């Protein structure tokens, strides 16, 4: 194993979990999350010697992952491929308390861009300007997406328990 390989292996071990979690939160599926993380790391390795060994490598891999996710969302071809996999439509259900379960279901129902903004803001703790740069959106759009997403989640959490139960059942069918 070359020196580059050994260094990259350490980098992989340090970054993979973080990236796969980001991929999971963006897609709601661990398999897809790993797919995104693996793809981002393969692409990062290709640029390994050019990028140097600075701290920006992790940020670079994250940017590659987000770009990849964006392009997957854009490409109808890939959407179609995913549509062919509708047999696995039963989404991953994390082990959460009842309130968190309601919030999780509501987050899963958000449009992709709104969910991506929330994940980058509240899981990755990135400032809005950085979220806008990563998603290739104007800052104002990011602000309004976040505002609308939070408003929807608040409304969901304020719904009566009976109505939530119906919503959850519908969401699972």
């Amino acid at each position: 194993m070359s020196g580059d390989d050994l260094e990259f292996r350490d980098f992989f071990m340090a970054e993979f979990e973080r990236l796969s979690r980001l991929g999971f939160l963006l897609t709601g599926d661990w398999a897809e999350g790993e797919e995104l993380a693996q793809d981002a790391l393969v692409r990062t390795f290709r640029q390994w010697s050019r990028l140097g060994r600075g701290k920006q490598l992790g940020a670079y891999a994250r940017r590659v992952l987000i770009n990849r996710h964006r392009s997957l969302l854009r490409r109808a071809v890939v959407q179609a491929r995913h549509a062919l996999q509708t047999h696995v439509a039963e989404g991953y259900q994390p082990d959460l308390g009842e309130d968190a379960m309601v919030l999780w279901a509501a987050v899963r129902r958000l449009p992709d861009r709104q969910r991506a903004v929330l994940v980058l803001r509240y899981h990755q703790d990135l400032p809005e300007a950085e979220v806008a740069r990563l998603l290739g959106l104007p800052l104002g759009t990011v602000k309004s997406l976040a505002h609308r997403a939070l408003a929807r989640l608040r409304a969901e959490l304020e719904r009566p328990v009976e109505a939530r139960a119906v919503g959850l059942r519908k969401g699972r069918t």
Partner: protein
Amino acid sequence: MSVEEQLRNLFEQAAANGLSSAAAYQRYLRRRRRRAMLVRAGAGVGFVALLTAAVAISAVLPQRAAPTAVQPTTVAPPGPPQVHYLPGPRRAAIAVQGFELDVPTGWLVADLGDVLWLRPKGEPRAKIEVGTILVSPRIGPGRGQFYPTTAVFSGIGFHAPSGPYSYSRRPDGRRVLLGEDTGGSQRNYYVAWPYYCRPGVRCAPITKARTLQIRFYAPAAAWPEVRRVGEAIVRDARPITNALPSGDTSGVRPPCQLNRVIERADIYSPNYRSDRPLTVELLDSRLSACHLRAALQVVVRDDAGQPLSVSGGQRPFVLEGDLPEGSVDPTGVYRITWRWTNWCGPRSVHASVEAVGGPTPPQLALERAQPPRCVDRKRPSKINVFRVVR
């Protein structure tokens, strides 16, 4: 607690059970090797393109009589992709998807994949993508023309473009669907493009639901030109090979590029609580003519990615045949189900179905299955092939 704080907690909790880095690193190394192989294979594209061009020409020559019996299949050398130029005027085609078109002056083939990508020279942000795809029969442009409006194709996942929809007809009578018709600098057209099987082959009904997708988008400045060329392709793309009623009589087909779905469905198991059914469905996503050969096995691994011994596991099962035609299953899908029973070991293991052997085994995404319930500690855990449809 504010909704923002709840979100932070939620994301932490939901993503708490992360994936093992050690096992993932082994998968990463395999992926990197595959990518390197693909780059090397790219050097052979020219050769493959010439070969497939020769095949397509021989298939469309009018003087060649169609045989009346099924011909043996010859598998073309593996290697991407099946895009080629034909001699004479600038024409591009994907023979296994049954279409060809003229490449306008000032345009070039931008990318070679399982779709044909065209773009105007000097404008990399504009693209036209052309390739076959299965559209939901409920809205598909072929309904009422190539299959009944009431046709039901169960067991298949379809591409379902969102509305609003509008329908029209090409000069040759084929119906055209314009989906996601929301204006702006993007269009998604679907032309009815049924697949015809070789003479003598029982043809799965699903083959008639194939469409030719023409998708184009561009920045505002390039949009008028891109739209003009894109709509010309919608109108003028020509059927060849398996899109002609005589079917693809060449008998030559490349190895399948597969989509795979592993389904944990209780319908295959009489006793779902104690069994863990693992079902793999194999379907060419473009509904193209291709040859399937896949040796598949079930492997149980621990968290570190190390394989564990299970009676009957790791015994490869070979599926071989031509897709989409020639399949017994009316959906045109090959399906194999294993049954995994009686796991009394640690719960932190998972089973996956893996392709093994051959110079270029199919590269397919895997869905991992959790272990079944422990029924009898004195008896071994077993994995058996339970049902095969081919």
